[in-house]
């Protein structure tokens, strides 16, 4: 049994990063995630990681590029507008194949938006917010415990696939306090023969680049990247199911709305409605295969995507369902968390019309 603490989501993420062997943190303050850098700043004297408050999110993500290319385990955290500023850097990092962890403790948008939680950054996270053809692994924690677990996992996956990994959380998970079990510190020793650490006599120089000026070389690079993304799609899909065994109605929800959705399922079951929840834990790769199986089942009548957006993940659900069953969307925006009662009323109305 690991150490038990009562922690805020953002602080738990920070503590998990320390225990995962993070060597460098570069970040810029933005609500609702500033507790991460504050926690790391306070804890720094007890550890030997590098911490730097950058002059902007543009600088932070490029510091991640430099630090990762130098072979270090590095992380930054931000919230929606800051994550937008990082998109160019994420594209470079994906192409240069540098392992690093980024967390977006998302808030409501667009624009400066609100500091209340939001899920409107889904497209940006899973479709590639920057330029060019790339994907990144996107983990969507729905509890303070998962802020810890996903942070450790994110570092492992980043190194395994030489890719940026995004933790797509939200202001609710980042700010809430829950009991967490912390892992033992991982003795991390990077083995990265590709890193730019100084050209020793026994090897050629290493260089890290995302520049392939000849079309044939650029296409070759893209084919390599796509092969890697395919491998990730085959191996890294993660999801959780709740009462789907006999369910006729399937709710899909991730992050904080998946918690509301569990309550919706419970209320529905009390009312005699056979409802279940499918929660993507990785929103990329997306659990399309499992959703497709459910859509194929004669038992399942309809899908409902519940989000804190104007309808984003529902597009991936519809792609997986592929017209076989009706797929409905219910969402609130602006930082408003849907209540179980309003969602259940929406679901009941739609079911009556089926």
């Amino acid at each position: 049994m690991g150490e038990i603490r009562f922690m805020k989501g953002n602080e738990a993420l920070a503590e998990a990063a320390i225990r995962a062997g993070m060597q460098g943190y570069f970040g810029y303050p933005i609500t609702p995630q500033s507790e991460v850098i504050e926690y790391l700043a306070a804890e720094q004297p007890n550890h030997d990681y590098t911490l730097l408050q950058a002059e902007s999110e543009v600088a932070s993500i490029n510091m991640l590029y430099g630090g990762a290319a130098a072979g270090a385990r590095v992380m930054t955290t931000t919230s929606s507008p800051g994550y937008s500023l990082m998109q160019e850097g994420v594209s470079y990092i994906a192409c240069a194949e540098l392992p690093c962890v980024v967390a977006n403790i998302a808030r409501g948008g667009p624009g400066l938006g609100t500091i209340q939680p939001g899920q409107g950054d889904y497209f940006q996270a899973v479709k590639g917010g920057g330029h060019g053809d790339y994907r990144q692994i996107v983990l969507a924690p729905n509890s303070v415990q998962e802020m810890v677990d996903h942070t450790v996992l994110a570092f492992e996956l980043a190194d395994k696939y030489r890719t940026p990994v995004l933790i797509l959380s939200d202001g609710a998970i980042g700010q809430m306090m829950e009991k967490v079990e912390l892992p033992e510190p991982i003795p991390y020793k990077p083995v990265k023969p590709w890193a730019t650490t100084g050209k020793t006599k026994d090897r050629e120089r290493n260089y890290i680049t995302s520049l392939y000026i000849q079309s044939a070389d650029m296409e070759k690079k893209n084919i390599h990247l796509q092969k890697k993304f395919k491998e990730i799609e085959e191996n890294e899909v993660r999801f959780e199911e709740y009462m789907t065994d006999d369910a006729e109605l399937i709710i899909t929800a991730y992050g904080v709305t998946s918690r509301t959705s569990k309550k919706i399922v419970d209320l529905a079951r009390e009312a005699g409605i056979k409802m279940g929840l499918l929660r993507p834990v990785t929103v990329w790769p997306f659990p399309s295969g499992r959703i497709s199986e459910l859509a194929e089942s004669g038992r399942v009548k309809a899908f409902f995507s519940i989000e804190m957006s104007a309808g984003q993940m529902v597009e991936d659900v519809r792609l997986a369902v592929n017209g076989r069953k009706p797929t409905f969307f219910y969402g609130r925006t602006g930082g408003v968390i849907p209540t179980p009662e309003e969602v259940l009323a929406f679901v009941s109305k739609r079911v009556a019309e089926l």
Partner: protein
Amino acid sequence: MREGYEVIYQKPKTLTDNRMHYCPGCIHGIMHKIFMEVIEEMDLQDKTVGVCPVGCSVFAYDYMDVDMQEAAHGRAAAVATAVKRMLPDRIVFSYQGDGDLAAIGTGETIHACNRGENFLFIFINNGIYGMTGGQMAPTTLSEQKTTTSPFGRDKKSTGSPLKMTEMVSQLEGVAFAARVSGNTPANVRKAKRTFRKAIEIQQLGLGTQFVEVVSNCPSGWKCSPVESMNWIVEQSIPYYPLGVFKEPGK
């Protein structure tokens, strides 16, 4: 080696055999060579990590036989900051043009200098965007014609050429700031000594080192290499004076 001949001069072993893409007469090639000579002479090849962002020198990693990172446009200072912070015992340098360092990357430049990040900026200032075909840079001289200032740079609408070395030498974090050129053999030798001094300061960990090179662009300036060297003497250096602007203990 043919009998009766001996090697009296060769390029440093820290330069690769790749043929450079730089235009005839461009000072980039000279700067690559003398900086890599310094790395060789100081026996630092295995300890050096360079960062080359977007600009004509984006392919510097094809020529400099040291570990290198290619950075996004303007972000070399942020990238180099992290490299040095993660690998404090390595020699770290960025090699940036004026569009990169003084336009899109001004913020990163100023803040890295202000933090006293212990790496060397090599700032190649030719007063124009060479790679994209000769557009106006923040360092383009007043009245100078470029493809985006076809009637000459107008101070009233585009400001005056930025003097980056003078600016950064005001910052406490900067330990060494100098401006050199590569237009004459004497200036090339001075530039090489300046690079060496900058690296020595980095080894002592005294703060940021900033070396600006008054450079040329025969293609972008639409003149011959010789004319471009004359332009440096007649136009560039009077506005961008050479010399050491800041050094430790002075």
